[in-house]
């Protein structure tokens, strides 16, 4: 198995863990981390899979992932702004439907 393919499978694992955590957790910050894991897993699959097909570095998925990372950090920052605003207004770091029957 080429090392490109190994990392593609690693990306698969990251995606699974990310989805698991995203659904399981109700704390918004943990959800954001899980979502970022899912994103990183996707990037790994994208580059790893395409390079394992060719057996050499493939620059187009690499460029796409580079764009993706920058957009992902902007999305994370925006999500954090929203979470902090939400927490400042409601004193909760979870959404109302996750706060239990209290």
């Amino acid at each position, binding site marked *: 198995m080429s090392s490109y393919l190994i990392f593609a499978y690693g990306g698969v694992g*990251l995606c699974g863990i990310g989805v698991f*955590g995203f659904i399981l957790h109700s704390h918004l910050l*943990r959800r954001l981390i899980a979502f970022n894991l899912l994103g990183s897993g996707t990037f790994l699959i994208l580059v790893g899979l395409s390079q394992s*097909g060719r057996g050499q570095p493939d*620059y*187009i998925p690499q460029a796409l992932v*580079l764009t993706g990372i920058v957009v992902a*950090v902007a999305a994370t920052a925006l999500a*954090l702004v929203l979470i902090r605003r939400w927490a400042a207004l409601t004193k909760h770091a979870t959404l109302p439907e996750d706060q239990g029957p209290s």
Partner: protein
Amino acid sequence: MNELIDLTLICILLGLATLSLFTQSLFRSVMFFILLGLILSLVWIRLDAPDIALAEAAIGAGITGILLLDALAHLRATSNTPPQLLQLKQPRFWLALLSGTGVILALGLAVSEPLSPVVALDLKVSENLAESGVTHPITAILLNFRSYDTLLEVAVLVLAALVALTLRQSDEHPVANEFLPNQLLHACLKLFFPMIFLVSMYLLWAGSTQPGGAFQAGAVLASAFVLFYLVGLKTQLAQNEHYLKRGWIFGLAIFVLVGAVPLLQGQPFLTYPDAHAGVLILLIELGLTLSIGWILFSLFLLSQSASTFQKKDTP
């Protein structure tokens, strides 16, 4: 031997991912996530993608880490119950487990399918590389062959910053001096800042021939701005909303302007004249670097003023 390194990296990666999601303390969880970013940049090196490794180290581990830690400090006051992991009676746990394994199985099946490249786009890239004005293929793709992607990406960044701006308190001016009023730190930063700036500009310059480019340079620049802010060397610029916005638009404006000039000569949007392509790309990249750095810093700054109510309650 190489496979051993890869497998070790994957094990560390998956272990850190699990830890970052399921430790009790939120602080540890963020720390593990930052560590994961660093390991991920090693993974990108193993994947022969040094550009992404640079970006991941600067953005994934650096900027995201700063943002998360800063948010964490302000979220302390909220009701933070540690997660109960094995809530076997909760339908939510089983739903999560089912979805997680489902995703792994489906993606694993997809990855194990042998892949046949239908269109050899990489050949087209290497054929046309000479005309692009730069010799590094990734910079050529990002700023010449697929420049629409990059243009819209910067537009997305500006949009994110604008949304963040609407969420801040209008009558609020965060005071920087409360953070770290340390003379030694000030003195060190004054020495460090020119170096960080130089690294950023070097990354930008190197981008045309070797790994590097506007995104990595912008991220490094943003970290320099954040450092400035943290030690309390607050510039007047950051206070003034007009300067804030102008900084965001700068890179996008240069990009659109350079892209629009060929329209006057009856050529499509974003075609560079062959003779000047290299210089134009460098000009666009310079604008992008400054803007990306400024936008990332602004997002950090704005996320601070989004939670001002919190500050009054926490001592």
